[in-house]
């Protein structure tokens, strides 16, 4: 009987491990693990960790000034930025800086207006075809969920952003592609996006490549899993309640069955 139980426990763990082992990424090396303030969107043992919001705000700046010229984040609204510490006035200003197409008006014509906090992030291209046409035939992926949509999550994004090197001897790089150590196949269409001091941080943080990569990854992690902190907070309360409940039920069961045995 005891052997059976051990077997079952082992089985459950194998099952849990199966999907993660199923994700061995092509020929690219496994991205090195980084330290994240929130522990990672898929990290199990990060019960009390939350996002580094200063970094998330800087990451938004990197996204806005660098990434957003090609990559959409259409699942986010400007109002969401309130959750990472931007003030209402800042969010209004960020939104209003964008020309949003609206309409049709009473004459049946589309018109543009300044963005509102309720608007979704403005996409750089009107549709996927336009995005592909402007980028050598392949549309740059939307970044709203990118951290959850790649194996190794934050670590992979960070490794990719910092993984641009010269192609090794003998590597055939087709025109229009760039060598990246961590991209599956190593030939990536995106040119190195982040450079030393490519942005000037408003909070005075030195804008090294590593710093920018870390910040923008933090921003995209938050964008992919905005409810992470609420999830963990509720989870702790639920588990504590259940453990206590289980203890009481165990006592009740023991008490009741003691007459039977």
């Amino acid at each position, binding site marked *: 009987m005891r052997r059976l139980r051990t077997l079952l426990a082992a089985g459950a763990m194998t099952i849990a491990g199966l999907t993660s082992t199923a994700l061995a990424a092509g020929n690219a090396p496994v991205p090195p693990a980084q330290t994240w303030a929130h522990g990672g969107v898929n990290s199990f043992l990060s019960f009390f960790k939350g996002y580094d919001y200063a970094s998330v705000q800087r990451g938004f700046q990197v996204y806005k000034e660098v990434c957003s010229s090609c990559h959409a984040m259409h699942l986010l*609204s400007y*109002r969401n930025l309130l959750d990472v510490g931007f003030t209402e006035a800042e969010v209004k200003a960020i939104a209003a800086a964008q020309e949003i197409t609206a309409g049709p008006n009473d004459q049946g014509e589309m018109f543009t207006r300044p963005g509102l*906090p*309720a608007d979704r992030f403005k996409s750089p291209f009107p549709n996927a075809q336009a995005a592909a046409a402007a980028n050598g035939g392949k549309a740059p992926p939307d970044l709203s969920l990118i951290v959850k949509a790649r194996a190794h999550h934050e670590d992979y994004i960070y490794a990719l952003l910092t993984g641009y090197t010269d192609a090794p001897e003998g590597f055939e790089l087709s025109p229009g592609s760039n060598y990246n150590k961590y991209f599956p196949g190593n030939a990536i269409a995106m040119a190195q996006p982040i450079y030393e001091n490519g942005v000037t941080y408003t909070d005075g943080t030195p804008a090294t490549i590593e710093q920018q990569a870390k910040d923008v990854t933090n921003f995209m992690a938050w964008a992919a899993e905005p409810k992470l902190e609420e999830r963990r907070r509720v989870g702790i309360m639920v588990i504590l309640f259940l453990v206590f*409940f289980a203890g*009481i039920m165990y*006592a*009740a069961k023991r*008490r009741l069955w003691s007459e039977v045995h």
Partner: protein
Amino acid sequence: MADTMHAGDGQTRRDFIYLAGAAMGGVGAAAALWPFIHSLNPAADTLALATIEVDLAPIQPGQAIKAMWRGKPVFIRNRTQEEIDTARAVPTAELIDPQPDQARVKEGKDNWLVLVGVCTHLGCIPLGTSSGESKGDFGGWFCPCHGSHYDTSGRIRKGPAPLNLPVPEYAFLTDTRVKIG
């Protein structure tokens, strides 16, 4: 003797454990229910659209427009002086839902009447906003569903509706721009 004492103790402790178990189960079930109920309340994107801004510049005196606000029409009417005077000439006591016209507009902006365009009877949309529609017996709005007549202040004057057309919360941002909600 000792045995009976023991049994008595056991009885209380068991009762307490069962009671505690049942209580925790009840609390847990109730707490688990709340997220599901609350998920039916307006979501964050819906709440974000709970205010709108409307440009009043194109509305000529005597004209009215409809704007969509929280899924309902809002009537915005640029009233003529004559319409204002008619509304204010009526003794308040004669009204079904007594309310002076002054209480239904912003001071200094007496020509602008902003109303939620939903009949207070059973929720139809009254006619009278677009030109050519029947404005009813009192020059305001007329609800075709059950024949309620509203005056130039949007107050109920005749028919089954019990209340005046409600005035939403709104504020003038500039002379020609109003924020509703």
